[in-house]
């Protein structure tokens, strides 16, 4: 191999960017508005690319997206329905975001969602006859949070104690909890009047009150939004949040300065699990009112995408959860009106994620105008990829 690289200034093969008089410069500080631009930009590019798919299938892009938008936001009803869809995603998105901030990779949101739903069902089953709704509902949420936290803590403790890879344990725990649930639904918890794997419908005293009468929008959404604020405040304003972020940034320096990384890991897992568990309670007590195997529409997994698209920021999580809720909701209308399969929204989701992740790298650079002095000889290949 010729090791030395020619010392002579190369000839001019500048990148397009540079010939246009621009260059990329790395920036060390990413401002909040950069994140907002990334998020919005990613959704727009995702939609734009899908419009090519729509056009390719000989459908009108404008009509399709209008139907999508109408289905999502076209009427009060549509908006409420969108928020209903967004509710569990806000919880699971917050769960993932909180854990990821500490670089604790909790992929078990799905299992913790079910653990939460089971916890909620368990306390409802136990006390719905004796407790009034005003007490029952909070208790049911507490039960869900506790169950979710407990389930996630298994992975947390294994990681803290034995340095077990939490990605693997949390994924495995997803399977385990589903098996436990199927067992319970087939046996102890099975409703006596059905052959299906489902429980009895829970009594009124366990039902979440509605936020808007006559719609399906229940207070789960309000609680989810409140939790976003709580997570923000915890991360920004408390010593715990400081330590969580610190462990995510540099756990070595954290340990030197007395932050117990194992302790933070277990706590983060538990809190993350509790948040995912709340999603289970909200779905059980706000929408389904009985426990069955299909109460989750992959909420735990989609929550991870939501968290990443929301740049691990609670506000970002709320925004992207609502956007996803809108897509899911609007897709139904779109399918009915134009015949485009609702699965298209999965493509939009996937593309948005890709672009957000790309954008996350891109915002670390800024475009700078360079002198358009073409007399300057260019050197060898610049950083055009």
């Amino acid at each position, binding site marked *: 191999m010729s*090791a030395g690289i020619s010392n002579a200034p190369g000839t001019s093969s500048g990148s397009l960017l540079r010939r246009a008089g621009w260059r990329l410069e790395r920036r060390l500080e990413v401002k909040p508005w950069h994140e907002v631009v990334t998020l919005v930009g990613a959704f727009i590019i995702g939609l734009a690319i899908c419009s090519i798919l729509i056009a390719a299938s000989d459908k009108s892009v404008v009509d399709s997206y209008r139907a999508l938008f109408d289905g999502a936001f076209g009427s009060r009803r549509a908006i409420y329905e969108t928020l209903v869809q967004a509710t569990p995603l806000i919880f699971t998105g917050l769960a993932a975001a909180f854990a990821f901030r500490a670089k604790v990779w909790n992929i078990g949101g799905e299992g913790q969602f079910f653990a939460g739903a089971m916890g909620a069902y368990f306390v409802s089953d136990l006390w719905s006859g004796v407790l009034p709704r005003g007490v029952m509902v909070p208790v049911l949420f507490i039960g869900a949070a506790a169950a979710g936290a407990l389930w996630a803590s298994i992975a947390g403790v294994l990681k803290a104690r034995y340095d077990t890879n939490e990605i693997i344990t949390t994924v495995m725990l997803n399977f385990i909890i589903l098996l436990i649930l199927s067992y319970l639904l087939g046996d102890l918890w099975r409703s006596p009047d059905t052959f299906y794997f489902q429980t009895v419908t829970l009594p009124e005293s366990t039902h979440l009150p509605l936020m808007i009468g006559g719609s399906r929008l229940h207070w789960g959404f309000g609680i989810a939004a409140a939790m976003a604020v709580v997570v923000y405040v915890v991360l920004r304003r408390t010593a715990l949040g400081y330590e969580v972020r610190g462990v995510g940034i540099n756990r070595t320096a954290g340990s030197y300065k007395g932050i117990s990384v194992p302790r933070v890991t277990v706590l983060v897992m538990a809190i993350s699990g509790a948040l995912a568990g709340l999603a289970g309670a909200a779905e059980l007590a706000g929408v389904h009112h009985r426990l069955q195997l299909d109460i989750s529409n992959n909420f735990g997994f989609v929550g991870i995408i939501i968290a990443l698209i929301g740049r691990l920021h609670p506000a970002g999580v709320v925004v992207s959860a609502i956007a996803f809720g809108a897509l899911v909701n609007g897709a139904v209308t779109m399918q009915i009106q134009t015949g485009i399969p609702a699965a298209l929204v999965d493509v939009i989701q996937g593309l948005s994620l890709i672009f957000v992740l790309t954008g996350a790298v891109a915002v670390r650079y800024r475009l700078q105008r360079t002198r358009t002095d073409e007399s300057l000889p260019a050197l060898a290949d610049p950083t055009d990829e």
Partner: protein
Amino acid sequence: MNGSGANSVLLRASGVTKRFPGVVANDDITLEVQRARVHCLLGENGAGKSTLADLFYGVHEPDEGVIELRGEPIHMVSPRDAIAAGIGMVRQHFELVTPMSVLENVVIGTRGEAKVDLRTARVRLGELCDLYGVEVDLDTPVGDLAVGQQQWVEILKALYLGCEVLILDEPTAVLTPEGIERLFTTLRRMASEGLTIVLITHKLHEVMEISDDVTVLRRGRVVRTSLTSEVTMAGLTRMMVGRDVDLDIDVAEASRGDLVLDVSGLDVATESGRGSLKQVSLVVHEREILGIAGVSGNGQDALFDVLVGMQPAAAGTIVVDGQDMAELSPAARLDLGVASVPADRIHQGLMMDFRISENLILGRQRSDRFGRRGWLNQNDIARFADDSFANYDIAAPSPTHVTRVLSGGNLQKIVMARELAGQPRLLIVHQPTRGLDIGATEYVRRRLVEERDRGAAILLISEDLDELLNLSSRIAVMFDGRIVGEVDRRDATIDRIGMWMAGVSGTPGEAPP
């Protein structure tokens, strides 16, 4: 500018300005580097030295002005362009792939070839090592090398890529005196072979020793470029900080108080066995600075780690104020009033993605000083940050900026400000003035003495003998994981300490046991 020998100018910055949000890091800089000479850049922390070097290396592009090489303007978009043009650089914070071997790290920078021929590379690299007298094992993973060695890998990388100008950003900060001697010998050989060297350093005697030309920067501007033979250290200091600075600060004798730290029979095992501790015993009292001298790699890191609780002791006791803390967690030790400044500030001392103000409270985020019951009080934090900025003259637009934007010396100031503010009972500092400009060095040394006078017990681990002789009440010397000798400052001589550092025990004149 130098009028003489204008036709031998190799690298030139003319009218170069570089702005970052909130600061003008380089302000209309014009500078000429002559071929086959050693050119030093000197200036306070944050003066813009690294930024200027980055402009030469294509990391940044000037907002105004041009960089010229061999009289031609060159337009660099990335270090690749610089490398292609024959400019190499060892940056202040290394850029190595630590799990990979020395050889792999060196060839990783070559591009354009799909397949790397490691065998040829090995031969060529061996030749380079021979030519410049570099000793490094090509197959060791870089992560296992000491920092000083890692730096040689960076230098090899630049040479391998065929540089004609080699820029070194504070290379001596991570080297022992012997290492510096070796580096300088090599640099001189390189210059005589026709290589051009640009060297950044804070140490004036190094400037005087190695350089042919010196340029002083101040607040982003060039104060002056001179022939080194025509300037004095005092003159350079005045150009750099605008006043006289005497680093040999006046340290009054202090009567030592109660025993604070009592370490006895301490053994620490390390995986490789290198840098382990064997039967270390030492004591530090109130109002006393115990200096630990020694060539790096002789157990200083293990000593630091075991004292702060990051490494378990295999045997022995660490007693602070009568309590054995050998089994305590780092957090519990902080509660006992043990503060520490690690040598590797970026990895062990700072959260680079935190705000500066957040880093200033690291370790005390749960103390009443900055909040209550787990809540952080933003006002208290902001006020403390403002005080620290003022006291330590920290050069940054504001405390809410991300720590990453700080210059190397300012990072160290953040750590010092944080650790000294807690009024520690026991302060363990490792290379506290590494990378600091002389003004800041003077300030930190004064602060250490003030802390001593306040009543703190201080363990000062340093490779800077001048610093140790100036500040310490007693000096102990480490060699191969043991304390091989200890001496009162009054009786300390460079010779005696040097002997111990080389592993010869006993006192001069006596036969070693």
